[in-house]
């Protein structure tokens, strides 16, 4: 699946997007954040406080409990500051 990063999550991870294949057992957005955080220092930094990182699956806001099965595009970003 495609993973997108925005704002300081993007800056910390060091790239705007990537393709990943999550291993079995990673079934929710929260699981995915934990798994990503284990992929290296930059990921650990981006997800050091997973409670403040927001997520969207296929362009709809979701909570950490949301299942990721079937998702084509998952995005991680800080709280929004538009308007």
């Amino acid at each position, binding site marked *: 699946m495609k993973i997108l990063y925005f704002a300081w999550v*993007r800056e910390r991870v060091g790239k705007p997007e990537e393709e990943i294949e999550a291993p079995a057992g990673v079934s929710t957005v929260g699981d995915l954040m934990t798994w990503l955080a284990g992929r290296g220092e930059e990921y650990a930094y981006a997800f050091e406080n997973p409670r403040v990182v927001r997520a969207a699956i296929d*362009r709809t806001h979701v909570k950490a409990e949301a299942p990721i099965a079937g998702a084509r595009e998952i995005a991680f970003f800080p709280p929004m500051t538009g308007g």
Partner: protein
Amino acid sequence: MTVRLQREDFDVNAEVAALTRGRADIGAVVTFTGLCRGSEAGEPIAALTLEHYPGMAEAEIARHVEAANARWHLLGVTVIHRYGRIEPGENIVLVVTASSHRQDAFAAAEFLMDYLKTRAPFWKSEERAGGAQWVEARQSDDAAADRWEPAPRRSEAAQ
């Protein structure tokens, strides 16, 4: 309904004219323009840079315009949000609502702005003396958006 994300500035008159031209059923038009300020809590800001999530931003704004249409009697809504680098005094966002009566136009414009602040996938970075800094979300903006949630509204109506 018009929803546009763009780098360029917008023209308030032109957007209002596009909503009202040739119509005689509109009695009230409210516009909200958000501008870049030159300082924040006393510290100078040289510019803002607005990042957004292309595709999701349009969809999210359109969903909230539909929610506004379901909630109030509106005869037209336009939302334009800029992205990229924006200097103090420049426009950031425009919301225009048209209705027969003023209450609906005001309420829908406030609702849309509260949602844009907290739910539309945009992020502001400020150019300060010490370097670029991401703007933190305000709790007051969350509270402003929360007041439109169905539950508190219903209890207010019951008073």
